[in-house]
């Protein structure tokens, strides 16, 4: 006769513990559940809602993709002295944009530092949010960089949820983070310094999202020093307009409030006027908070092509030289306004570029009153005189 589940007989004489079979099954089941719960955070793909099964209440007229890089140093202090995390601020604003647009689908990817469970088990290092019609449809964590292609996991999530666009859908892409390297690219992710991330990887990501068809109407780079001939030319096949900062963009900050009600803000003037308004708004907000230099540029990609073609040869030559310094972080090599270098003197240099510039309020650069809108690397003269510094850094 089978003993009841709740009875346990201890055989003291033999030193063994006899547990009835139903209880062992319960224990095994419980162990499996606990084991599965422990392993769940480490699995690659998390279960999620099939977004395609949900039909939007309102037609989708806007598609916004935001990638927010947080795997690095993003702490800053505002003018009141309060500390902020720039990536968390950007995430909050991106979510606000998502909830304020009933006619948009919004993808938000937040790249966070890799943490570990019990030191050895890596946890997921990406957070994904999908909004449609102003509502959060799905949120899940995912594992970044599973493939040789940096944005493969993000593209997979995008393809899973993306609604097939009707005609006239406005497409926006925003990237927030530190300066995207144009060469080398090691150490961009603090959790994985062996990984490479360059402008080429971002371009490849945009290529996969656009599927080689319609370009993004607007690409916004909330990064420092990416208003360069190389970066703009790399992204040109995938964007009609680009907003970027040729110099240091304090806090990787672009105010996103113009995106909050796209039905209103995109009504008059189309995407060109919107891009200009976006840049002007960001510039105005920064001038109230920041004492360092502010440069925000809007690039009409088609109109910049003659200058990009002209500048390509000299820019590539400089980059080839700099790329030989493999142990030097690109951000440690000085930038300059392309206009300072006569090699880039071109009559149509300013065609297609609208620049919002304010000099720093202190420092040697206080007297510089304008900027061409194009940022270059310091020229060969600088490289030669600072060769010793660069060679020391290589050791």
């Amino acid at each position, binding site marked *: 006769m089978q003993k009841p589940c709740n009875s346990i007989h201890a055989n003291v004489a033999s030193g063994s513990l006899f547990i009835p079979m139903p209880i062992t099954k319960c224990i095994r089941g419980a162990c499996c559940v606990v084991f599965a719960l422990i392993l769940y955070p480490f699995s690659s793909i998390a279960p999620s809602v099939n977004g395609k099964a949900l039909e939007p209440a309102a037609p989708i007229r806007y598609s916004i993709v935001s990638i927010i890089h947080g795997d690095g140093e993003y*702490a800053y202090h505002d003018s009141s002295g309060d500390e902020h995390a720039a990536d968390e601020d950007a995430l909050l604003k991106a979510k606000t944009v998502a909830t304020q647009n009933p006619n948009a689908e919004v993808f938000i990817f937040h790249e966070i530092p890799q943490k570990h469970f019990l030191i050895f088990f890596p946890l997921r290092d990406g957070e994904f949010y999908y909004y449609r019609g102003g509502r959060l449809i799905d949120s899940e964590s995912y594992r970044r960089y599973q493939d040789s292609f940096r944005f493969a996991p993000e593209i997979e999530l995008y393809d899973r949820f993306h609604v097939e666009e009707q005609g006239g859908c406005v497409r926006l892409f925003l990237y927030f983070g530190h300066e995207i390297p144009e060469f080398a690219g090691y150490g961009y992710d*603090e959790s994985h310094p062996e990984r490479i991330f360059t402008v080429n990887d971002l371009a490849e990501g945009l290529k996969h999202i656009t599927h080689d068809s319609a370009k993004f109407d607007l690409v916004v780079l909330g990064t420092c020093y990416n208003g360069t001939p190389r970066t703009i030319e790399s992204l040109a096949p995938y964007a009609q307009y680009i907003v970027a900062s040729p110099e240091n963009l304090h806090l990787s900050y672009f105010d996103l409030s113009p995106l909050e009600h796209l039905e209103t803000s995109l009504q008059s003037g189309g995407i060109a006027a919107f891009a200009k308004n976006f840049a002007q708004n960001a510039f105005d907000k920064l001038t109230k908070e920041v004492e*360092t230099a502010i440069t925000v540029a809007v690039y009409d990609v088609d109109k910049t092509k003659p200058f990009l073609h002209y500048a390509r040869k000299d820019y590539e030559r400089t980059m080839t030289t700099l790329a030989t310094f493999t142990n030097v972080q690109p951000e440690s090599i000085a930038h300059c306004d392309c206009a300072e270098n006569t090699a880039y003197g071109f009559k149509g240099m300013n065609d297609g570029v609208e620049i919002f510039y304010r000099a720093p309020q202190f*420092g040697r650069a206080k007297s510089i009153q304008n900027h061409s809108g194009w940022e270059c690397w310091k020229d060969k003269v600088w490289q030669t005189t600072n060769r010793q510094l660069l060679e020391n850094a290589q050791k």
Partner: protein
Amino acid sequence: MKGTTMSDHKMSVHKISGLILVILSVSFFSGNAQAAEKIQGYFNSAAREVKATADPVQKREILNNEFQSVSNALNVIESMPQTSASDRAGLERYQSAIKDNQNELNGTNGYASVPDGQLNAFSNYVVQNMEQADETITISVVTLLLIIIVVILIAR
């Protein structure tokens, strides 16, 4: 010196060693980002002190002391034989940025002195300038931590 015993000296050395060990061991898991945040916090604290006082003489003293403390710490670290060549290059750039701020504050090396009415804005500029410098100057975690430790010790 009267009142100072050998055991007091040993205790002080032990305290410093303990402080170094705690900071290094905690920051081992924290990484570069948290180390750099600590240095930014130091500049930010000085900026808060500047804005909290109305006296321009005191404001200048706070800023000059801040620059001097960090500059002295950087000199100490730079002179250590175990500091790598690449870190030395980063430290020199840091020194250069701080020295430039100090020159502007005091009106030396071709600068006009920062007017009294702009000292608050200048303290914000220093914080922002140093936060931006963190993005362009690469220094290893250990060296960053050493800077923090020496700054703390100098400030006592």
